[in-house]
């Protein structure tokens, strides 16, 4: 029984079938990996570059970054404070979800793009205080619509920067490479 299957596989048609199967599996896997790397779908195609072009500072909408662990999303009231004075808000299809959300009082369901795992205790404030700029980690927002992550936030990437910024300062290196600085 098994032998007949092997025999069938050995003939040209069988070899083609094996080839197709392997190719299919490969492409499925490749597609699977590809999908994981795609930006998630957002409720609003928020154009960061437009806002940056108006000269709005990052901290205007994400003030938490200089004060504590989370940068935070701006409240809808904050969005509306400007947008209800902009005529385009009434007409633009892109802005319709914002208008609807604010007027109906339902929160917009943003999908975070920059995330660290839950076992990492990240603090924005310390990084800002150490002289890091937003774009060092989050990329140049004047070039993107929806925020994208130019880098994967993995431990090697964090640690690399930590070790580099410590330089020759041993005490700082101890602090910045201590497991307990980020994991507890």
């Amino acid at each position, binding site marked *: 029984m098994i032998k007949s299957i092997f025999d069938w596989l050995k003939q040209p048609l069988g070899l083609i079938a094996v080839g197709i199967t392997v190719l299919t599996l490969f492409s499925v896997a490749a*597609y*699977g990996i590809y999908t994981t790397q795609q930006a998630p779908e957002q409720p609003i195609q928020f154009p960061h570059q437009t806002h940056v072009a108006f000269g709005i500072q990052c901290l205007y909408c994400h003030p938490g970054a200089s004060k504590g662990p989370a940068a935070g999303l701006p409240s809808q009231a904050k969005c509306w404070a400007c947008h209800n004075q902009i005529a385009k808000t009434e007409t633009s299809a892109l802005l319709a979800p914002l208008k609807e959300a604010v007027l109906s009082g339902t929160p917009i369901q943003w999908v975070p793009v920059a995330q660290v795992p839950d076992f990492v205790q990240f603090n924005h404030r310390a990084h800002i205080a150490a002289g890091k700029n937003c774009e060092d980690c989050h990329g140049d927002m004047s070039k993107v619509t929806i925020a994208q992550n130019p880098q994967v936030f993995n431990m090697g990437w964090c640690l690399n920067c930590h070790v580099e910024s410590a330089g020759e300062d041993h005490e700082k290196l101890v602090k910045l490479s201590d497991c307990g600085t980020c994991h507890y």
Partner: protein
Amino acid sequence: MSEKFSRRDFLKLAGVGAATSAILTGCGPASRYVKREPYMQMPEYNYNGQSTYYATTCRECAAGCGLIVRTVQGRAIKTEGNAGNPLNLGKTCARGQATLHGLYNPDRVQEPLKRSARGGDSTQAMDWDAAIQVVADALKNNKPEEIAFLMGMAPDHLFDLVSDLAKATGMNAPLRFGALGMFEARATLSKAAENLFGEASLPFFDVGGAQVVFSFGANFLETWLSPVSYTRGFAGLREAKTKMRGKFVQFESRMSQTGGKADEWIPLRPGTEALVALAIGKLASEIRGGAMPRAFENVDPIDAASKSGIKLETLEHLAGMFAGSNGALAIPGGPALGQSNGLAVAEAVLALNAISDNFGKPGGVYLSALAPNQSEYQRPASAQEMQEFVQKMADGKIKVLFVHGVNPLFELPTALGFGGASKSVSQIISFATFPDETAREADYVFPDHHGLESWGYQRVATGSAQPVLSGAQPVVSPYYNTRATADVLIAAAQLAGGSFASALPFKDEVEFLHGKVSALMGEVDGSISAPDLPTFMAYFQQHGGYWRNSDERVAPKAGDALNREISAEVAEFAGEGEFFFVPFVSPTLAEAGANKPWLQELPDPTTTVMWNTWVEMNPETAHELGIENDDVVRIVSEAGELEVPVYLYPAIRPDTIAIPFGQGHTAYGRYAENRGVNPADLLGQHFNEAGDLAFAGMKVKVEKTGAKKPLSRLESMMGVYGIGLGEEH
């Protein structure tokens, strides 16, 4: 294969592939499963990821400790003591810590409910308008004297509101009750204070300032009156900063957590506390010299020694200790008061303090300061008053019963017959936050907010030198569709019209609160002051209440405390059986903690048992009866019986057994239900002279059942008791 492979299948397969590679690579798609909602309007002073702290009042018991609750993004994360509150000075007990497990308890009543049949599980959800209509109808369609409110010992603002309503409309005055109050025997304490000092008030014992403390059954480190404040006092007694390390002697038949901290633990025969106190008084007076006070005259120490089972030498040694110190303090409490002679015990022990003449002095006895907006001490109903009330219910004199903050079906001894009497009440409306036994027997449940979602205040009855009114404010917005009972009553009173409407002419609970608190605005000596009411109320909330800066404890007028007869009779015990029965409140669960999983998981301080009820029995006795650890025994009293596993407790008299109160719920959520037993089922209707239940005045029988139920202990039976280690070398 190829012709059957549709695009849809491919996509499915791709999905599986994506999920697999997601799991394998551990990155990428995590972001896809998370949604973040921004604030509609960011609250003031808030930033994402940063905590906001609110001051409020703990509602786990009636002591009124101030809390600071840490909230993050509208969720309550952690409770800490309010360091400003003079009662607890930044400290909490375990129950205060676990209050969050009440707030986020999975079994809360989530919306107003109408029950199809009392005791049944079938309910229909209502909206609040309908609920208010039900309350309004209940108020309007019944005679005022047929309406009764049964309330817990907290919160006070609601009690004030209902009292006002009752006063204005002729309704029955609200009755307050709590199992904690019953086991504390508050009525006995205040009655004894009245008899001795002429003032019915709650005594306050300055443990921290004393040098020698004799406690007759008072379990002040556990649940008694104000455990956090008394624990601070105990630390003061022991800390040798400015004085010698204070000595502490505990007289009780079963070693409580408090007794465990005593330098000397005296296991006297239950019922002989008054006798022993008077005998010590006599011996101490002899040592001190001078005329023998009348109170001690007729006591024979030898007789006391033989009746109580304490050696005469021990009595003499204790008397010497008491007489030899100029900071001796004697405290009556707990099971010693819950006996037929409880009042005599309280008087005898209070009188003992006259020897060291410590009334109104540091390290002595005071009468508690009244809270800032209080004119006289209001004690909760004694068990006897509850019995009268139950009788009234049974007689059909109560048509509508409102229940808030108390669970009489669990907390009252079954023998009082609340369950039967409630059948004669045509309408029962419960405001329970949790689906407790009483809510289950109610026709309607209109859930109140959890304490951390509520406005209010609590008067500190005792424990603080300063008068304190602890303020409560919501620290989070209500999680479920619940509504403040005060709001419901105000709205219903408006709807009912007439005297109801005029009694509660408020927009809502907050307006009522403002009215009550504003009276304090003009005071000079207050912790906060403000020129206008909004500012004052803001401070009131910010600081977690209002307190005066002065020590307003009252020195008792004890001129002739010793110049009176005090009965040295030994208590009478009801029922037949070879064992004295001591029920005590579980220090970790208290009366309402059983539904909080982390309180269940806390080991009992004396036995380290978790998640269950046990009966404590002396190992020698048990050995004679052939009973071992974890054997289930049947305890039979004249009022009832129950089956409970045995804990062989080395520090209990051989003729005594003890069961903690706190478990044995038949409702109250998944963590409490059908767990352990309720010792209140064993209690008969016996009262002391002050009307408190003689809960420690029973004798019971113990029978083996042959079953075994291993208790969950934190301790090791091998390491602590040497059980299972093998015989000794």
